[in-house]
């Protein structure tokens, strides 16, 4: 077992003082984190034994900070690309809760009509996309950033992923290309130390992702990810820099996943994380930390109301999902192709081809 302290050696357990952001911002961030937390907890408790959510779900308890920060910093026109642990990013892009729940329940009112589920969910109206194959969505994001720059739009592409995605070579191709073309791309690496059960030390010769990004020419910052204020400021600064044409920024957010890797069950029987390590992070939980900062009094005043609001919203989303119909049989092929070609229709003529003369020599290439 690795010494858990190494997890946050680089960022330290540094937090920044409450005064760094306006008080109402801090409170709003707190509420946003609480919302993600309560949503995930509600889904976990509804999962079994009901077994109506029938897809793999990767919950994000303990990793609510990035989601909360993003929800106040993204514009509708920005794009977010998420990995498998998608709910935080979905909510961070301010996509609707009903469509999330309904998707998890496989209903036709779901964000994707029940086609995608938790690990592949998207919400196009808000430019939110996800997918389960590590680094895949991140590599796609670089092309979106290219398009934004090409079209001279003041928006950003944002990719959120775990440190595991940086094991994939294509991730480094992506960093290089973003830096080479100075693209408006924000890369957020939530380093929770593990890919499933495997700690960084079993996968990486050096645990210095931000430095590697630096060697590839990318600006990079590290931040203690359980301090919502640090995360907020860091993302805020990065987005400002990106929007003003400064090129890509990589933020390594050191955090911890409190729940199992996947599903509502406890995976601690596998023994990949020590009780000590888990306790340490529980004590440094992002919600605990911000509550400490805001002070017991304020929390006692605010939390019941927040909880009530959120619970009402969650109950509504469950009701909506469960009452929605299942999708019906379909013309399978047509689900996979867009049938119309409006642009081609407007720009291209139609001709019959003449007779091809087959009595010509084939081409034999030269030395290459």
């Amino acid at each position: 077992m690795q010494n858990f302290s190494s997890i946050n050696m680089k960022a330290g357990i540094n937090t920044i003082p409450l005064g760094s952001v306006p008080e109402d911002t801090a409170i709003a961030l707190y509420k946003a984190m609480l919302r993600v937390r309560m949503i995930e907890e509600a889904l976990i408790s509804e999962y079994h034994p009901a077994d109506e959510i029938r897809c793999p779900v990767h919950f994000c308890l303990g990793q609510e900070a990035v989601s909360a920060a993003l929800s106040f910093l993204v514009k509708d026109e920005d794009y977010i690309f998420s990995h498998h642990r998608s709910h935080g990013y979905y909510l961070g892009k301010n996509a609707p809760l009903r469509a999330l729940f309904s998707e998890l329940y496989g209903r036709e009112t779901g964000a994707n009509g029940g086609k995608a589920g938790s690990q592949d969910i998207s919400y196009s109206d808000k430019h939110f996309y996800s997918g389960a194959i590590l680094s895949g969505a991140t590599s796609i994001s670089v092309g979106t950033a290219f398009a934004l720059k090409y079209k001279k739009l003041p928006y950003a592409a944002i990719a959120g992923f775990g440190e595991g995605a940086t094991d994939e070579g294509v991730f480094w191709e992506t960093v290089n290309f973003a830096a080479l073309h100075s693209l408006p791309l924000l890369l957020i690496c939530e380093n929770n130390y593990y890919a499933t059960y495997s700690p960084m030390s079993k996968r990486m010769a050096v645990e210095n992702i931000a430095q590697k990004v630096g060697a590839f020419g990318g600006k990079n910052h590290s931040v203690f990810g359980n301090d919502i204020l640090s995360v907020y400021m860091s993302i805020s600064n990065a987005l400002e820099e990106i929007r003003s044409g400064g090129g890509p920024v990589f933020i390594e957010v050191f955090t911890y996943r409190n729940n199992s890797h996947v599903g509502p069950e406890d995976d601690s029987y596998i023994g990949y994380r020590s009780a000590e390590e888990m306790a340490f992070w529980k004590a440094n939980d992002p919600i605990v930390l911000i509550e400490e900062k805001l002070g017991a009094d304020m929390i006692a005043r605010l939390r019941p109301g927040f909880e009530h609001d959120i619970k009402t919203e969650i109950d509504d989303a469950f009701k909506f999902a469960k009452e929605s119909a299942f999708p019906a049989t379909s013309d399978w092929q047509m689900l996979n192709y867009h049938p119309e070609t409006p642009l081609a229709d407007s720009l291209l003529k139609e001709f019959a081809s003449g007779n091809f003369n087959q009595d010509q020599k084939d081409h034999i290439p030269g030395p290459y």
Partner: protein
Amino acid sequence: MQTQTATTREITYAQAIQEALDQAMGLCDDVIVMGQLVDYKSGIFGTTTGLVEKYGKNRVLDMPVAEAMMTSAAGGAALAGLRPVVVHQRLDFMLYSMDAIVNWISLWYFKSNGESRMPLTIRAITGKGWGQGPQHSKSFHAFFAHIPGLRVAMPSTAFDAKGLLLESILGENPTFIIEGRSLFSMKDEVPEIPYRVRFGEGKIMKSGKDVTLVAIGTFVPLAMRAAFDLLKNGIDVEVIDPRTLSPFDNALVCESVAKTGRLVVVDPGWNFSGFSAEVVAGVVEQVGSVLKANPIRVTLPDSHTPMSMSLESQYYPDEQRLSDTITKLMRQNGL
């Protein structure tokens, strides 16, 4: 199909591709070309020459040798409104991008429930001859055609090369154009203005009554030569070029077989589990009972490509082999 007349001239397959790219870029600012070396004078066997001078470095992008990212990036750019054309000097190099193609691009439309799409075109060139060897000559049309969400074209003439490429670039689905390098210098009558060839519409290249010969990609000229040869021996072959493999004009083939009662498929891919199997299966499922003889596949052998010219000439079927096969088939029924 409402057709029109237009000014045409003879140009090569490579020139037709270049012209399609040029016209697509002229018609639509969202079209960009991405690929290693697309912005040099040599221009991917002449198919991208002149574009960078006309449209600039921002639209004609030389790329790092990082095919996986390139393809993903094309997907991301398409998502945000561009219409990228990705160019691979050899199809083999594309294998680094298989994850992007299969796990992302092909299923993007599906998993978004039809709300989001990636209109992009991937041009991949299959090498043939002069000892290209096993890492420069593969063609996976059977595989790409197998994957839902992708469209696959294999143009055999300059006319189709231009029309299918324009249709693909200005269409709304991710599309593969698999180009046979041995076709690049072959000429055809090609209209000057931009036109379309629709996906899923095969073409009867030569009509005939005795046997249906479905010929794919680089093997179309060869099939045509064999067909005209056989005519001298009184065998009247109907040659069909499906032009696109996905969607595939199975109806056209079935109709032809219903008439001829015989089917031969000549496919520049490996035999086993190859595209020729689909052509055969698609026919016998529908009209198997009309067959007067068992169908035949003429393909590459189930082997990687050898370098030596003495082996190459045995590896790739030629007109003679095709003619002999068809002649034997006709004799089976005592003709």
